[in-house]
């Protein structure tokens, strides 16, 4: 396969996602929309009662906005990833793609960069919005340092990209968007959180994707950064391998 063909296939994946208006607008609302709403609320509260509510920016509100972004951006990433993974199967188009003669592994793998092309600008846009607001609206509070911004940026990126890859892999296995979104949200919001609190599981809990992502959060290191990264990478590899295997073997 030539570089031009790879570029065309990735562009086609991006086109399919970009034209899903519901996914695009909801993802925008969950990322930049939430940041705008949060900082607007903080500004209004501060202006109405400066004695009780501090400036809308600063380090504290920056870290809070990052926690919101990794959560809601994760939901947006799941929606985008599920659409990328199950879009062709759901529309019945996979059969035509498979009969093009192109390798099914290739057909699967191009979904990842195609989805990233939609997801990353949304996450980065919200991140930049929150960072600028935290600096501009800091008032007398300390502004987040470049190091802190970079650390949180990496953390948000790792968390949301992992959600995207998990969704692509699972959706390629299940073949349905809605089920994938439901399963992953249930896992992230309930399953993984519950398991994290089961102390009898001991170190096994460090293998959870949510534990690993939490461990990458600046100033919170229940496990080493290397171990956390290894767990995150393992989850991504397992998701991609499962999706690729299913795409290669499914009857079209």
């Amino acid at each position: 396969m030539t570089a031009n063909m790879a570029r065309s296939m990735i562009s086609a994946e991006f086109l399919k996602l970009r034209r899903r208006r519901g996914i695009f607008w909801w993802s925008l609302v969950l990322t930049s929309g939430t940041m705008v709403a949060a900082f607007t609320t903080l500004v209004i509260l501060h202006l109405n009662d400066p004695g009780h509510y501090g400036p809308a920016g600063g380090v504290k509100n920056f870290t809070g906005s990052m926690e919101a972004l990794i959560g809601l951006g994760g939901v947006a990433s799941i929606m985008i990833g599920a659409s990328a993974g199950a879009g062709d199967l759901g529309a019945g188009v996979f059969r035509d793609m498979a009969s093009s003669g192109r390798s099914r592994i290739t057909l699967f793998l191009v979904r990842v960069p195609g989805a990233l092309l939609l997801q990353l600008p949304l996450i980065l846009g919200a991140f930049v919005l929150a960072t600028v607001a935290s600096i501009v609206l800091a008032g007398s509070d300390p502004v987040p340092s470049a190091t802190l911004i970079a650390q949180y940026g990496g953390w948000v990126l790792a968390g949301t990209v992992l959600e995207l890859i998990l969704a692509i892999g699972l959706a390629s296995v299940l073949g349905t968007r809605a089920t994938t979104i439901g399963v992953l949200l249930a896992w992230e919001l309930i399953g993984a959180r519950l398991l994290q609190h089961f102390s009898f599981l001991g170190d096994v809990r460090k293998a959870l994707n949510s534990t690993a992502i939490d461990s990458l959060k600046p100033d919170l290191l229940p496990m080493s950064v290397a171990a956390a990264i290894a767990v995150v990478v393992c989850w991504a590899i397992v998701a991609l391998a499962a999706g690729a295997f299913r795409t290669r073997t499914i009857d079209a």
Partner: protein
Amino acid sequence: MNTSTPSRSDDLVVDIRGVTKRFGARTVLQDVDLRVPRGCAFGFLGPNGAGKTTLIRVLLGLVPASAGEMRLLGHPLPAERAAALARVGAIVEEPRFHPHLTGRENLVVAAAPRGAEAEGRIDAALARVGLADRARDRVGGYSMGMRQRLGIARCLLVDPELLILDEPMNGLDPAGILEMRGLIRSFVDEGRTVLLSSHLLDEVERTCDGVAIIDLGRIVTQGTLAETIGPQDNALLIGCDDLALATALLGSLPTVTAVAQSSDGTLRVSLTSGASAAGVNRALVERGIAVHRLEASRLSLEERFLELTSRLGAA
């Protein structure tokens, strides 16, 4: 089985030998041999569930065969699948698209894994099937006929040597069927081969040069249309005002070998070889019998189909 189809691999676009497909314990295709000659419209017929679509899916590599050998455009499968499929356009079951994309965008998506040349053929393909004006509308709003035509346009992206069309007349109105028939014949005139799977026997008879009939996972006959239908006997269907007198008269003619009255009030008259309808008509009219119907009795593909397939028992 008829065997007049070409036997050299070079003359065949599809050469399937001994293909079997099992889903678990169920055998869907059993030792199938199919040879489709180059440059013709070839009908692939069978009752529902006979194995038509499964054979097409096996041929396209969408499901693996359990046994047997296949060559597509001269390339052995699955070893040279990519090379074989590079010049094959196919619609399997029904043309499916992303409903949220426009017709043109769907073709962009379809062209992406098929290379830059395919992308360059999008506008010509849309024009060929008469969808250029609706190319920027979302496919979700297309009628079934428009989707069928968009499916054909998608096939044309690879400048196909072989088009595999599974029930392309489904959902089309009479004008659409006529248009599709013309389109298929135009492909053949350009030197392409069309493998047309259908249960519309009349359409296949009008459109195709060759035909294969599959039933219960086995090919029961294949060959040219004339070979498949079989020899036609020299017979007439006659409608007239006095059936009793006509029967007696026709029975006495030396050119008539048999006269039978059917339930719809017509006479089926078998003639000796070389006897003409005009002579029979003249004899009837000279005896004062008014003839209001006289036509050659032809064995149709439908009759042959029913005779060969399991539907005969159910009919």
